[in-house]
C-alpha cells in the first residue's frame, strides 16, 4: 500500500495525478482569498499566543473584550497586533491583561501606528507571540518525549473513543476507564451550540448538552488526567477535540498550548453543517491548520458528515473530492501526510445489496489515494436504529472493513448510536467488538485480493472517476454564485446537498479584507518568513 506499489484496484496513476492537479487548481484561488483576509478569531488567537487568557466577570474572554475595542477604534483590517502593541509600547498597560481591562473600561484609545512606532510595535508583538509559539513547540517536544518514555499506541488502527457527558468531571473518569479498556485516542465531544459561539468559554465546565465545552481549562484537566493514565498503562493516550466553528483558530491555539494530539478540523464542515460564512471558514481554517502543523497535531477531517445527509452510495465521490481538497489545503498550510486523518465513513444503507463490498471499495479507494495519511474511519450512524443488536453487528462489520483496509484511526461505533450519547457500558462493549474483529480477522487483508475487473475494483474506479468529474465541474463553475469557483460550487449545494452562498452565513461580520499594513506576527512565524 506504500506509494509506488501497483494498484490493487487497477487505478491509473494518471487519473490520480489529474485529481490532485484539479484539487490544486480549485484550492489555490481559495488560499489566495484566505491570505487577503483576516477574522476576529484569527486576531484573538494571536492575542492568546501572546499570553492573554481569562475572562471578565460575565465570562467574556479578555481577548474578545480587547479585540472588540480595537476593532471599534480602528477596524479589523490592520489586524489587532499593531494597535495593541503600539498601546503597550505607549505604556497604556503593563501587560496585555491590564491593557484589556483598561480597554474594556473604555480608558484606552487605539490607533494604527506608523513608521518607527509601527516597527517597534511589530517587534514587541513578534516577541510576545513567539513566546506562545515556543510554548507550543515545547508541548510538541513534551509529547514526543513522553511517547518515547511511556510508549506509543501498540498497533494500528488507533482505537478512538468519545466521551460526551457534558461534565468535565464525569468525562475524566470515563475517559480514563476507556483508556484502560483499550482506547488509544479519547475525544471529548463538544456541547451543542459551541460552534456558533464567537468566543471560547473559560474554566472547567459541567453543563454541556450532549458534549462538554471546549475550554483551555477542560483541555488542561483532561490532558493531565490522560498523562497520568498513559503512565499507568505504559502507552501514550491521545486527546482529541474540535477546532471547528467560529473560534477555530483560537481553539487550535489552545490545543497547541495544552498539548492536545488530534483535532477535528475540516475545510468546509463549518460552512455546510453550521452555516458559517465560507470566507470566514477558509480564513480561520488556514490559520488553524498552520497552528496544527506547528504543534504536531493530527487533523481529522469531516467527510463522514456528508453521508449523514446525502446517500452514501450516490455521494461517495463527494467524499473523495472533499478529501482531495482537504489534502490540498492541509499541505498548503504546512501539515504533513502523517497529520492527515482524512475522514470517511461506513454509512451505506445495510439494506443495499452488496453494501459491505461497496464499503470495502470506498475504503480501499481512500487507502490507495492517500497511502501515507492515517485516515479516520467513521462508524455507521445514520442507519443505526434502536435495535441495539443489529447495531452491534453493523459495528462489527464496520470494524472488519477497518481491519481489512488498514485504516489508521478507527472511531469506535456504539450500539446505542440512535438512542443516547454513549454510556460507559456502550464503550466497553464497543471496544470488545473491535478487539474481537482485530484479533480474529485483523490479518484478513492478506487473503483478500479483489480482482481488477471485479465488483470492488470497478466500483472504486467509478467513484474516483466521478470525483474527478466533480472537481472539473467545480473548477469550471464560474457562475455568479461566487468567485473563486469553489465558492460558486458551495453556493450551488455541491456538498452534502447544502447551499451556502459566499455572502451569507454566520460570522461574516467577523471577516475583514486586510489593509496594506496588515501585520500578524503569528502568521509571519508560522509561515517561516
Amino acid at each position, binding site marked *: 500500500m506504500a506509494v509506488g506499489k501497483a494498484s490493487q484496484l487497477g487505478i491509473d496513476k494518471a487519473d490520480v495525478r489529474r485529481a490532485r492537479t484539479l484539487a490544486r487548481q480549485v484550492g489555490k484561488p481559495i488560499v489566495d482569498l484566505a491570505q487577503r483576509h483576516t477574522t476576529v478569531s484569527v486576531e484573538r488567537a494571536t492575542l492568546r499566543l501572546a499570553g492573554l487568557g481569562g475572562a471578565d466577570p460575565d465570562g467574556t474572554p479578555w481577548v474578545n473584550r480587547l479585540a472588540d475595542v480595537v476593532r471599534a477604534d480602528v477596524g479589523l483590517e490592520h489586524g489587532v497586533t499593531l494597535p495593541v502593541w503600539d498601546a503597550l509600547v505607549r505604556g497604556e498597560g503593563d501587560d496585555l491583561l491590564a491593557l484589556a481591562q483598561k480597554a474594556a473600561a473604555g480608558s484606552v484609545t487605539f490607533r494604527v501606528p506608523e513608521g518607527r512606532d509601527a516597527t517597534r510595535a511589530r517587534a514587541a508583538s513578534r516577541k510576545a507571540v513567539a513566546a506562545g509559539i515556543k510554548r507550543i513547540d515545547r508541548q510538541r517536544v513534551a509529547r514526543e518525549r513522553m511517547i518515547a518514555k511511556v510508549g506509543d499506541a501498540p498497533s494500528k488502527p488507533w482505537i478512538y473513543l468519545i466521551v*460526551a457527558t*457534558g461534565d468535565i468531571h464525569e468525562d475524566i*473518569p*470515563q475517559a*480514563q*476507564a*476507556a483508556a*484502560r*479498556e483499550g482506547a488509544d485516542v479519547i475525544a471529548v465531544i463538544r*456541547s*451543542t*451550540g459551541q460552534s*456558533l459561539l464567537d468566543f471560547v468559554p473559560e474554566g472547567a465546565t459541567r*453543563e454541556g*448538552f*450532549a458534549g462538554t465545552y471546549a475550554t483551555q481549562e477542560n483541555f488542561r484537566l483532561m490532558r493531565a488526567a490522560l498523562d497520568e493514565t498513559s503512565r499507568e498503562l505504559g502507552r501514550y493516550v491521545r486527546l482529541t477535540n474540535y477546532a471547528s466553528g467560529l473560534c477555530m483558530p483560537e481553539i487550535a491555539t489552545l490545543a497547541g498550548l495544552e498539548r492536545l494530539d488530534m483535532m477535528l478540523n475540516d475545510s468546509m464542515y463549518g460552512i455546510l*453543517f*453550521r*452555516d458559517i460564512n465560507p470566507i470566514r471558514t477558509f480564513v480561520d481554517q488556514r490559520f488553524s491548520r498552520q497552528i496544527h502543523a506547528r504543534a504536531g497535531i493530527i487533523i481529522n477531517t469531516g467527510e463522514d458528515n456528508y453521508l*449523514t*445527509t446525502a446517500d452514501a452510495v450516490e455521494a461517495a465521490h463527494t467524499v473523495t473530492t472533499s478529501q482531495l481538497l482537504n489534502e490540498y489545503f492541509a499541505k498548503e498550510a504546512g501539515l504533513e501526510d502523517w497529520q492527515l486523518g482524512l475522514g470517511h465513513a461506513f454509512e451505506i444503507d445495510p439494506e443495499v445489496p452488496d453494501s459491505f463490498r461497496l464499503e470495502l471499495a470506498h475504503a480501499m479507494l481512500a487507502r490507495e489515494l492517500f497511502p501515507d495519511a492515517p485516515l479516520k474511519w467513521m462508524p455507521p450512524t445514520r442507519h443505526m436504529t434502536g435495535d441495539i443488536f443489529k447495531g452491534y453487528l453493523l459495528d462489527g462489520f464496520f470494524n472488519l472493513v477497518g481491519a481489512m483496509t488498514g485504516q489508521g484511526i478507527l472511531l469506535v461505533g456504539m450500539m446505542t448510536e*440512535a438512542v*443516547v*450519547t454513549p*454510556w*460507559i*457500558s456502550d464503550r*466497553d*462493549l464497543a471496544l470488545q467488538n473491535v478487539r474481537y474483529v482485530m484479533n480474529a480477522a485483523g490479518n484478513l487483508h492478506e487473503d483478500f485480493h479483489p480482482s481488477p475487473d471485479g465488483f470492488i475494483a470497478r466500483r472504486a474506479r467509478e467513484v474516483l472517476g466521478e470525483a474527478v468529474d466533480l472537481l472539473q465541474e467545480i473548477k469550471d463553475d464560474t457562475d455568479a454564485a461566487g468567485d473563486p469557483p469553489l465558492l460558486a460550487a458551495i453556493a450551488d449545494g455541491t456538498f452534502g446537498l447544502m447551499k451556502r452562498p459566499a455572502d451569507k452565513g454566520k460570522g461574516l461580520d467577523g471577516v475583514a479584507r486586510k489593509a496594506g499594513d496588515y501585520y500578524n506576527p503569528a502568521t509571519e512565524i508560522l509561515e517561516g518568513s
Partner: protein
Amino acid sequence: MTLIRPYGDTTGDGMVQLSFTLPIEHSKVAEGAAVQLANKMGMDPALVVHAKPMGEGFTFFVVYGRVNHLVDPSTVEVVERDYPLLTPKEANAAIKRSLRRRLTVVGACIGTDAHTVGIDAILNIKGFAGEKGLEYYRELKVVNLGAQVSVPQLVEAAREERADAVLVSQVVTQRDAHLLNTREMSAAFREAYPAATRPLLVVGGPRFDETMAEELGVDRVFSRGTTPGEVASFIVHRLTQEKAS
C-alpha cells in the same frame, strides 16, 4: 383485551432481558446487588448470566428472568390519530375550501440543536418514507428556518410570515434539552400572541412522548417515524375545523 405477559418461549412465561451497569467493583456482592435490582424491578427468579468488570469500580450485568407484572393493553393511553389522513390533493382542497388562502407553516430546529434531517423530512419536497413533504402541497407555504434558531428569532419569523402553524424539531435529548427548549418556545408564543391568534404549535423528534403535548404547552407532539402526510393532515384538520367551528 386480556391481560398479557412477556413471552420468551412459552405463553405466560414472563421472560425478559435486562442490562445495566452498577458503580461497584465486581464481586459476589455486586452480583447479588444486580439480582436485588432485578428483584425490585419485579424479576423473580433473576439470573445474572454475565458480569463484566469495567474500568475501575464499575460492573456491567446482563440479567435474564421472569417478571411477575401483568400488562393490561386496555388501559394504555395513546395519542391515536383523531383526524382523517388526507392525500395532498384532499388537503389542498380542504384549505382552499375553508381558508380561501394558502396556509403558512414556519419550521425550525430550535436551541442549539442542529439536527435538521427530521424537520426536513417533514417539510422538504423530498419528504420521507415515500410521502412528499409539506413543500409539495400547493396550498401550503413553507418557511424552513433550519438549524439552531433561537426562540426570539422563531417568534419573530412567525409574526413576519403570519404563520398559521409553527413546527419545531428537537433531536438532542441529553439532560432533557428537548423538553426545556419546547417549554421555552411555547411560553414565548403564549407571551407574544393573544390566545385566539396564536399559531398552532407542533413539536417533533425521535425521543418525544406523544402524550406530553399539554404538559409542554403545544398542540401536538410527533415522535419516531412520523410521516409528512400525518403532519399535513393534522394541521389542515385543526385549522380548517377551527374555522368551521
